[in-house]
């Protein structure tokens, strides 16, 4: 396991946002974190990515306990997070975005030629088909933007990729494209933490599934132990969904 939590918890004032969650992600595997709105998914990934610090339990990277005080610290340990909304600057070109915050240098200058070339190469290596790295990111589709952000994290030596709802705002086809890049990142040996509320996106690509509900863990399952229907049922709170089906049935 590259990254592991043991009974991790977080409170905001009197609100218990997260209680006793244990999970892990190994090299070359995808761990999906599933849960409805308010289940604690965001709190968990913010702890993993260094935005928040946990109050209880322990957080281990490479088997040693850590406590990150900033996202930069997590990034230095190879834990990169791609957020759904704040991934890119729309008016800046793809290559400027790609190297933002870690620009290659040539003397005192920003090595623009290299940035352009490397961005184009890295995108192609991930199988991402961007027409022109000079175009502003604002002109890319949502899926393309997510893909560029993933390629960027991979290029900068991420060992663990945390993806915050990368498919939730996308259409079926676009979501498929992003899932393919998740699989490709996994094949390159990265550990992926994939946050979603859509079991249909999680199941095909995931190796392990952590289910959250109201801030607590409903268990972490390996793919072999859990069918897709079970996953969907667990997600929706099983019994609740059946009840709803009854309610909605025509008399």
């Amino acid at each position, binding site marked *: 396991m590259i990254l592991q939590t043991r009974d991790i918890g977080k409170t905001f004032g009197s609100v218990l946002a997260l209680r006793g969650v244990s999970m892990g992600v190994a090299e070359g595997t995808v761990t999906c974190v599933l849960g409805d709105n308010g289940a604690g998914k965001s709190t968990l990934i913010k702890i993993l990515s260094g935005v928040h610090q946990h109050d209880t339990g322990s957080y281990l990277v490479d088997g040693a306990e850590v406590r990150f005080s900033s996202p930069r610290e997590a*990034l230095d340990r190879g834990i990169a997070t791609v*957020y759904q909304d704040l991934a890119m600057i729309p008016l*800046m070109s793809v290559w*400027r975005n790609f190297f*933002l*915050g870690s620009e290659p240098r040539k003397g005192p200058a920003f090595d623009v030629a290299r940035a352009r*070339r490397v961005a184009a190469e890295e995108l192609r290596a991930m199988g991402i088909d961007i*027409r022109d*790295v000079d175009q*502003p990111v604002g002109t890319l589709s949502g899926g393309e933007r997510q893909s560029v952000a993933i390629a960027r994290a991979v290029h900068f030596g991420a060992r663990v990729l945390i993806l915050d709802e990368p498919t939730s705002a996308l259409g079926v086809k676009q979501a498929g494209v992003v899932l393919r890049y998740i699989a490709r990142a996994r094949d390159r040996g990265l550990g992926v933490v994939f946050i979603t509320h859509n079991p249909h996106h999680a199941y095909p690509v995931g190796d392990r599934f952590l289910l959250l509900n109201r801030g607590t863990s409903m268990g972490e399952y390996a793919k072999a132990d859990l069918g897709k229907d079970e996953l969907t049922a667990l997600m929706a709170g099983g019994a609740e969904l059946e009840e709803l089906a009854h309610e909605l049935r025509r008399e």
Partner: protein
Amino acid sequence: MTAAPARADERVARVGLARRLIVRPELGAVVGLVAVFAFFAAQSEVFRSPAGIANWLDPAATLGIMAVAVALLMIGGEFDLSAGVLTGTSGLILVTLATRYGFGVWPAMLAGLVVALAVGFANGLVVTRTKLPSFIVTLGTFLMLQGVNLGVTKAITGTVQVGGLRRAPGFDGASAVLAGTIQIGGTSFRVAILWWIAITALATWVLMRSRPGNWIFAVGGDEQAARAVGVPAARTKIALFMTTAVAAWLVGSILALRYTSVQANIGIGQEFIYIIAAVIGGCLLTGGYGSAVGASIGAVIFGMADKGIVFLGWDADWFKFFLGAMLLLATLANRMVRRYAEEVRR
């Protein structure tokens, strides 16, 4: 500016020169420049003579130095309304220290620089710490400096101006460097024009070819996203406010050395002209987009109109009307150009 991609994509049509030009932020300003030049040059022979050019490049230079700095700040997503009055503060410090307290001109300028840097730092610190709009924060600084300029000058001299810089030690050297003239082909040009060109070149290099340049676009485009990928957003913004302050100090010193006296109310109202020049040059009011060259071209348009109206023998009040019309046209043009740019690239 486009490097050839390693493998051409069949969906990217060969982008023609015209289209590549139109996606530049300076385009609107260049069109305006040509139109304004043609208008005045057609009616006034003096306007298009070398002496005339030297004449309208002079106000363009001091305005241009400020407009370039303000453009960088606006690309970084902030405003500085105190920049105009700060030119006055810097000039007043220079003249007061050099004429009343026995400072040489150079040490007095250094003192002015220290104060300007402190004001810029304070502006930046308050804006980044409190997250208040810079419009409000620097409006406060603007009013405070305006009060200090008048209050302190009155308290020291009993009048609203300080003068007599010519007699201060070191005046000749400083004046030659900042306020002198140079001869080019028999016409004398103000040396401030060289400072302006050098600053425009430096600012363009920083924006397009340095890491801080990338950060400036980023903090203006989306500060949250920039911070998330490790851009030192607060430091970038504070540095931008300090850059504007240094420009104000430079312009204040140039003007003080040129006229050898400074009015306590100088610079009031200029801050909007800097912003207007930057907007004409393609800067978005919302930040994240613009150019230093564009702001300089905006300043040239102002210089032309300022002097051109006089050459034509019109009432100088028409300048204000021109100012408003240019701003409106430029903002509309910028919006259209940007929209077109994004469509072209799609």
